[in-house]
């Protein structure tokens, strides 16, 4: 039961001179949830499920949601340092970092720099690496897909794909526009990856779980398998009836896998 029902869904906090919108819910071992390329709702069912038995911290990345995007915050490196600063500012240790899609890339960039405050990492349909070269494309380029193609690749159930724009508030439309801009800022080129990241993956020295939507058409399960093979001791698991966003399509299953992963520590 969410005992914080009367409190605001999210709040604004300044970390390293960047004003972030952050969801803080629940009590227990800390879980830092890093959302994906298309943002996340502050009232996402996944958050309810995670906050049931953990201290959930879910920031909106710079430029996403209502978080600021200063002119000098331009790369995923910046976001990685920002969130390491966030953990330090709050004095957190043994944090479970859960990164979905673009958020998973951030999680890896954090971990190769320092796992001092990180207990374990869950990477969910993450991006951030390339295994192929030239014409061999690992990550579908959402900028080149028609809305229909994007929906088909991203979701197992297309009902999630087309938000009813007419029913959205002005603020929700503004957030949608902000999210698109911020994603372009951080992922435009080289597209959706850091060519240098693979070189340093060996520095991830904490338990790593790689979770993948079985029907992910943006980054295929095989990419996830290769990623798990590249991280020391990482385990790979599929989530069925699910595309690129398990946090949207299978929030209960995802939450359970994460709680089990935390409990196994």
């Amino acid at each position, binding site marked *: 039961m969410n005992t914080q029902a009367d409190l605001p869904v999210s709040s604004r906090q300044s970390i390293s001179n960047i004003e972030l919108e952050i969801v803080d819910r629940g009590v227990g071992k800390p879980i830092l949830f890093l959302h994906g390329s298309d943002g996340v709702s502050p009232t996402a069912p996944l958050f309810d499920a995670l906050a049931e038995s953990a201290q959930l911290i879910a920031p909106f990345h710079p430029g996403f949601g209502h978080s600021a995007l200063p002119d000098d915050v331009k790369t995923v490196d910046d976001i990685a340092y920002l969130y390491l600063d966030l953990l330090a500012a709050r004095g957190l240790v043994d944090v479970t970092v859960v990164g979905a899609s673009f958020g998973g890339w951030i999680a890896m960039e954090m971990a190769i720099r320092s796992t001092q405050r990180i207990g374990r990492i869950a990477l969910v349909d993450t991006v951030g690496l390339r295994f192929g070269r030239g014409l061999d494309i690992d990550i579908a380029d959402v*900028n*080149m*897909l*028609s*809305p229909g193609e*994007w929906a088909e690749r991203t979701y197992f159930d297309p009902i999630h794909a087309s938000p009813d*724009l*007419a029913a959205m508030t*002005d603020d929700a*439309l*503004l957030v*949608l*526009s*902000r999210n*698109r*801009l911020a*994603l*372009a*800022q951080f992922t*435009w*080129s080289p597209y959706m990856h850091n060519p240098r990241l693979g070189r340093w993956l060996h520095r991830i020295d904490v338990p790593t779980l790689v979770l993948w939507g079985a029907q992910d058409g943006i980054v295929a399960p095989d990419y996830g398998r290769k990623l798990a093979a590249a991280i020391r001791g990482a385990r790979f698991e599929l989530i069925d009836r699910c595309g690129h966003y398990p946090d949207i399509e299978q929030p209960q299953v995802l939450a359970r896998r994460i709680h089990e992963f935390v409990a196994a520590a």
Partner: protein
Amino acid sequence: MRTWMFCENPYPEAWDKSSVSLRNSLPSRYCDPKKAADILHRHLDEWAMADEWGLDICVNEHHSTATCLTADCTLPLYALARETKTARLMSLGIHIANRPDPIRVAEQIAMIDVLSRGRFEMGLVKASPYEIYPANAQPVGQMRRFLEAYDLICKALANQDGPFSWEGEFFHFRDVNIWPRPYQQPYPPTWFVSLSPTGGAWTAERGAKVATFLSGRVSKILFDNYRKRAIEVGKPHGPEQFGYLAIVACAEKEEEAKRRAWEICGYLRTSPIVAKQWVNPPGYMPVEDNAKALRASQKPGYVPAYATILRHDGSRIPQATASIDEMIDNYVVFAGTPDQVFNQIKEYNDYVGGLGNLIMMGQGGELTHAETVDSYSLFAKHVQPRLKDLQADPYVERRKDRAAA
């Protein structure tokens, strides 16, 4: 008033190959290189007649599209710099925000200006939103990148003192020292393009000339904003600072002229055929404007403002389906006998308070070489001489009858 011959070098034979997108994704197997060669030569032949006609030359650029084969505007301009002796040569424009190398652009500008012995006018643009994708330019911060590129290009062109370094937000160079340096000093006249009424101010501040396309009555708002700002900052604000691109067709008979105009309007019917995902790149528009556009797009029958024609009574109609008469009435098209065309242009000149440069889309769609040459010849012989020293008079409420005075 100067008149500039303009053409997109279209490949109309491929226009029926996709109803989803004629830009960015249409496979080039639909482009027959032999036909493309004929098209490129034909339009160079037409432009090369500018000297004889007393007209000037304007060349644009687009990428990966059946609507425009000019993938680099500097190349035809270089060829024409050699083929002509008196016509001025305008790029409108070089995609300086999308090109990765402003110094390369400065070198191209210098070469055309030198070869033409000082006849180049450098139109430097941000380019249409869908051009982001073929260039793979970062859409976020485009305006800042555009302004830095412009700054760097001007400094590179004006510099005579040996190498300088540039450590900018977007561009880094260690040995900027272009040879040859431009013929016109410190560099050729600059043109910017603006399609929104508020665009006048920042172009005026830089003393650059400003051109608008097919915007009809909206140009007046932009030109007024420009003049106001230019006066405030002590920059030029006469008619020579303004350019307007319209579809122009002349013929001996009015009916034939309107038919020619309709043919050229194939541009309006095909230019917007762009797949949804490329119409509005992320971050290209400020987020507040983007959110408003998302809201507005929910209304049935919504057409974005830039694709509409503003009418006398303040209402708007879609450009793609407007009739020739509606387009003539609202200054998007000038078409008719030479006298009619003169009267239409004069009226527009009065409406905007003085237009120094008419950029004439005199060919488009399937308009043949013979028809194009005939239209331009009539214009050159009977209209341009009357435009040359045309002054702006107070605007007179439009007359329905546009027959010869």
